[in-house]
């Protein structure tokens, strides 16, 4: 029988989160972010967090909400981008920030989940990112050694999921979610559509349930768009 990972809601799913923990939070910009889990983190008022997430949302949504409340001590990200509060806290020194190349960030999360403690990549060689890191030449090209990332909790968002924790993502809302799902000591998945185990085609699962400890059906998704760009029909 498939193991049951279902919990009732975000509140129960986040049981055990504490101040000063390290979290991974899926999503790219506001696309594919675990809105319900983020709200619950805000509600719980936990502080001193280290958040591993590609971005930190925008000023008033996504992880930006936790930044506003000064709940985050350190961000590990690849892009600050359009979040003015993120940039302000970083430049003023209120917030510790570890900026790392996006591909290295993704691979370091995967490595954490895959039991690979470290790997070599050319990304960042010769830049600030390489400071303090081992450099080794492979095939004539210098690479730097990057270490796996781990988290006490990983919060991910999928489109569909089943009670066994199997997840299917939609379009580019996939992004970091499957990698972070692998790397959390406790991985909490929230989904738009929840079905009983056995309803999803086993060939189409993006994240096998083995990586997910808790799953719940999210509510009230806003799914905000950062930059609406369109063309006219004429």
């Amino acid at each position, binding site marked *: 029988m498939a193991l049951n990972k279902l919990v009732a809601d975000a509140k129960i799913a986040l049981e055990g989160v504490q101040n000063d923990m390290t979290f991974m939070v899926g999503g*790219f910009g506001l696309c594919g972010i675990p809105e319900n889990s983020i709200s619950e983190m805000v509600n719980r008022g936990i502080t001193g967090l280290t958040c591993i997430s590609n971005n930190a949302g925008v000023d008033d949504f996504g992880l930006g909400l936790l930044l506003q409340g000064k709940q985050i001590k350190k961000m590990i990200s690849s892009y600050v981008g359009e979040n003015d509060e993120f940039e302000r806290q970083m430049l003023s020194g209120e917030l510790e920030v570890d900026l790392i190349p996006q591909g290295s960030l993704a691979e370091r999360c995967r490595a954490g989940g895959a039991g690979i403690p470290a790997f070599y990549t050319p*990304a960042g060689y010769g830049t600030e990112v390489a400071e303090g890191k081992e450099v080794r030449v492979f095939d004539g090209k210098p690479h730097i050694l990057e270490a796996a990332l781990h988290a006490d909790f990983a919060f991910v968002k999928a489109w569909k999921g089943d009670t066994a924790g199997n997840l299917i*993502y939609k379009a580019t809302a996939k992004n970091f979610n499957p990698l972070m799902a692998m790397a959390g000591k406790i991985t909490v998945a929230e989904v738009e559509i929840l079905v009983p185990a056995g309803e999803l085609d086993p060939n189409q699962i993006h994240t096998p349930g083995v990586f997910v400890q808790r799953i719940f059906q999210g509510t009230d998704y806003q799914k905000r768009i950062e930059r609406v760009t*369109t*063309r006219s029909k004429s």
Partner: protein
Amino acid sequence: MLSKDQIAQRIAQELQNNWYVNLGIGIPTLVANHIPEGIDVEFQSENGILGMGPFPFEGEEDADLINAGKQTITALPGATYFDSATSFAMIRGKHVQLTVLGAMEVAQNGDIANWKIPGRMVKGMGGAMDLVASAENIIVAMMHTNKRGESKLLEKCSLPLTGVNCVTRIVTNMAVLEVKDNAFYLIERAPGVSVADIEAATAGTLVVDGDVPEMKL
């Protein structure tokens, strides 16, 4: 001087048949509007799509379908979605033939800086460091000078680097340049721009070899 759209148009002439291409944020994004007749290319966006199409029609935006610039997009027939690790496997593994990206500074040895102005502005490197470290063809799309009129083509970058010895070609509003042998080689001039204009706007070593043709757009 070229407009931003004309810079993109000139870069589009560099596209070769059957290339996978990654376009950065800003001017590079515009390249997709100028694919030459008879050339098939497929666009990758590092947040997880191959086969990126044009912007959606009004009212058809999908919050789950964006590009790396967080703009709503569409997917063409034959497109695929994938996670960020797979996306950078494509990039790092050299499965993407061309990268076009913007820059704050480029040095004559191919170094590029585009992610940080210490103490003043930090956008983050996003996927740029991975892209420039692995891509075999990198075209920088940028204005020749910054807002203060200072050259962005330098002997040495002054800003924190994004990558070293990696840029091979630059298309600016004034010129097309090749980066090799620790110098900028002038390949083409923008219509109406003289070699002297370009020399004046280039702080690094500029090599002008014979007659420099005007771009054809």
